[in-house]
């Protein structure tokens, strides 16, 4: 079985100017989106409120989740606390922003217990002062005691709609579980990866290949994250893992084409770069599409069937596979041509006389 013609002969290099311009524009656009609109970071990265609730009578965890989802807290994480009456709920502040606080408890958002009498001005002021202090004490976590309490009140109202015996036993803010160091370490990791790949490709191929590959990596990562930011979905840990996987997939794809470029350069007589790059892309085309398809099949099911826990991972991988495949053809190779790749640079060097070995 063959899905496509085995011997394609497209003149991809003819489109190198428009494709490079489009790529550059997309990169700028992606940077604009990422820094302008920003990523919607999840609970893993930003922290949020941790609310513990208790029911007088045993409750099913699914009911707690449903009650919260109906009230608009789709991203809330609900965990059982070892008994059938106590649950912990984790929520990000923005998730509750669209939900209006119920009228009855609105005037005094500083206390989590809705049953408390209102109007004690001194108490409210003290609470506010305490809240301000807490906010000042924890500037890094980005959520104050007042906000936490507001969320607690909203959560309780949502739960009471279905079960009147619910009560909040504690509310607190939780910091990010990933930690600040991950952001710094993440950057170091990415730099290390880029450097490592560059050195390897430099040694095995030539510096032009290293530059083209790394430029494409940056291109692919930025555009993938940019498109994801447009969807407005929450950027969580699985999403980060997916972005890192996109880097892996895309480098794999580039190296396969580069390998063919090197092979054809070495075996051909003329060594006309324009021609050879076109032939390399065309002869690896069937494998590029096949691998793209099989990997998409695997991650596509994660997106369409996997449910909320795997959706982001699947979606980012799908975007990344598409962008990574396109950039192998329309970005990495045009850059190679632009940098002036030549037959001489790719001939195996002999130790005694590199000049002699380079001759055909």
């Amino acid at each position, binding site marked *: 079985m063959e899905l496509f013609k*085995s011997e394609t002969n497209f003149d991809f290099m003819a489109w190198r100017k428009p494709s490079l311009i489009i790529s550059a524009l997309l990169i700028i656009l992606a940077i604009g989106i990422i820094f302008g609109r920003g990523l919607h970071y999840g609970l893993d990265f930003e922290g949020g409120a*941790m609310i513990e609730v208790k029911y007088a009578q*045993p409750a099913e965890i*699914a009911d707690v989740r449903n009650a919260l989802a109906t009230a608009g807290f789709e991203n809330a994480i609900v*965990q*059982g*606390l*070892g*008994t059938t*009456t106590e649950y*912990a709920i984790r929520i990000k502040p923005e998730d509750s922003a669209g939900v209006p606080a119920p009228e009855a408890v609105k005037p005094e958002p500083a206390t989590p217990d809705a049953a408390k009498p209102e109007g004690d001005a001194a108490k409210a002021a003290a609470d506010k002062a305490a809240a301000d202090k807490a906010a000042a*004490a*924890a500037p890094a*976590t980005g959520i104050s005691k007042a906000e936490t309490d507001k969320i607690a009140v909203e959560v309780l109202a949502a739960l009471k709609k279905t079960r009147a015996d619910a009560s909040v036993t504690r509310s*607190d803010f*939780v*910091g990010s*579980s990933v*930690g600040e*160091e*991950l952001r710094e370490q993440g950057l170091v*990791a*990415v730099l*290390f*990866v880029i450097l*490592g*790949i560059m050195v*390897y490709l430099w040694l*095995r191929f030539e510096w032009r290949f290293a530059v083209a*590959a790394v430029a494409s990596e940056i291109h692919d990562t930025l555009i993938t994250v940019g498109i994801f930011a447009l969807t407005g979905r929450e950027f969580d*840990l*699985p999403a*980060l*893992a997916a972005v*890192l*996987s996109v*880097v*892996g*997939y895309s480098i*794999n794809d580039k*190296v*396969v084409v580069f390998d063919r470029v090197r*092979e054809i350069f070495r075996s051909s007589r003329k060594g006309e770069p324009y021609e050879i790059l076109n032939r390399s892309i065309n002869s690896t085309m069937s*494998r590029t599409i*096949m691998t793209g398809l*099989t*990997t998409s*099949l*695997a991650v596509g*099911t*994660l997106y*369409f*069937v*996997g*449910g*909320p*826990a*795997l959706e982001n*991972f*699947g979606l980012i991988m799908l975007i990344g596979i598409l962008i990574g495949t396109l950039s192998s053809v329309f970005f990495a190779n045009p850059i190679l041509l632009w940098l002036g790749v030549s037959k001489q640079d790719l001939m195996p060097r002999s130790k005694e006389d590199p000049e002699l070995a380079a001759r055909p």
Partner: protein
Amino acid sequence: MNEFPRWKYALVAVALFFGFLYALPNLFPKEPAVQISANRGFTVDTALKEKVQGLLETQKVGFESIGIDGDRLLIRFPDTTVQAKGSDVLRGELGENYVVALNLASTVPHWLEAIYARSMPLGLDLQGGVHFLMEVDQKNVLEKQETHYSQEIVTIARDKKIPGVTASRGAQGIVAITRSAADRDRLAIELAKATPELQVSNGTSSDSGFSLIAKVSDAKVRELATNTIKQNLGTLRNRVNELGVSEPIIAQQGDSRIVVELPGVQDTAAAKKILGATATLEYRAVDTSIEAQSAASGGIVPADAKLYTRRGSGAPVLLKKKVIASGADLVSATAIPDQQSGTPSVSIKLGSQGAKRMLDFTMQNVGKPMAVVYTERIPDVKMVDGKEVRTSRIKEEVINVATIQGVFSSQFQTTGLESMKEANELALFLRAGSLAAPVDIVEERVIGPSLGQDNIRKGIIAVILGVTLVVIFVGLYYKLFGLIADAALLLNLVLLVAILSLFQATLTLPGIAGIVLTLGMAIDANVLICERIREELRNGSTPMAAISRGYDKAWATILDANVTHLIAAFGLMAFGSGPIKGFAITLAIGIVTSMFTSVMVTHVLVGLIFNGRRVKTLSV
């Protein structure tokens, strides 16, 4: 051409055997269970078993099995909801005489466990784990600061030639006593200059002295609190990471608490062992003004000193109160043989703050002894009038006394230790004591999975469906060679699971997604090989030559592609932490196993199928 030396067949067979063996335990899921152990004076016996059985039956809690296992009673339940119900019932009925704890019972046969074949623990998202709430003792931080500042005040007074100033910690802050009102004013001015973070006010005046009260400012206290939490968070993260519990959650909660959640454990006693004793350490000077032995027996201890005992021998040691460096200053402590003498030693590195103080101290005290005080806090919860009262015992010990050989600051060695074991132990203690402030475990709970059953089910279905689709697609597209690739793919899955189980990597839903992705990409090698074979056939090669050249040529590409991919994985592994590290490890192992299965295993299979046969066409 497509025949191999015997060792290749043997290697594939051995990999196959061990792969299946070590992947096997994952087919035996851990069962949620409730374990009952007896308090002093009571026993776990058949009478208890029958009582429990009766209780569960009357309350209509369905359990799978009940049995006595050593000195505990183990009741297995079909799922965690029923488990929670069961434990609620039993806790209520059995009372104080028995301890009812949630547990996860292994169903892996004993012979597998004997060869260390264990199943992968499931992550917090799939199964939950233990939740610890730890509280950082902020009061202790303030106390330490006040002690530090009272020393500082005396030093400043001495430097500025204000005579006879003493300072100590009082109820309202630090109380400094001066001889005259004029001295007091001068001291207040000097303190405002030298230590602006202190709020100074006049206290009582009498013939015996004029007191000055210094308080650490609120802003400074807040800053300290934030910093200690941050330092403690970092230290706890390292501790948990060092112990190899993968995918934990360690986060700040409120302004003085830290949440630690460990997956795959339901037995809180075991988890507490992992977090270890909370301890702090301090470097202090040994007071040599009087004999420690006479101070211990005579009871005369100088005002700026305190009596401690040596760990092990219990011998008294008299130490200055002033702290030279504390655990928070410690950057690293490693046991290594001394470079000059080869005797066991511990190499210690301090941060810049501690280094400066150490430099100041050692410049003036060469030849004098210095000691390390190790303070352990053992939290204790008692029930008083039906309320939980939390107290903690403090155990202070001197773990090491060494003579200062020269002037040093950030890096130095403690030598003269008796054995490498002792050196290792000291280094371990030093590292354990590097928490900035003592933390107490104030709450421990077993928590359920963070993902709903519904979402877990969806995820698992997607994973199975994804792999099945890939297998069918590749089989249809490359026919016989596709089926061979499929066989290799499944073997790859087995090997990957086996290695991850051996490492005891925690399995999370995103981790499973990573495995699927690795499998999806592993097919790439087979695609490369098959496409090459097709190309060779088109170019007019004979079938056997096409296979041979196809593998040869594809190998160069596969190697380059995988090595670059592996560099990416190693980068993430070296610098990422927690979940990202776990993901990178899965990726790296997957790349290596896929090179083995996609290239060597398929080639061996092809060799077995075509060996000795003359084929005219290839099914590819």
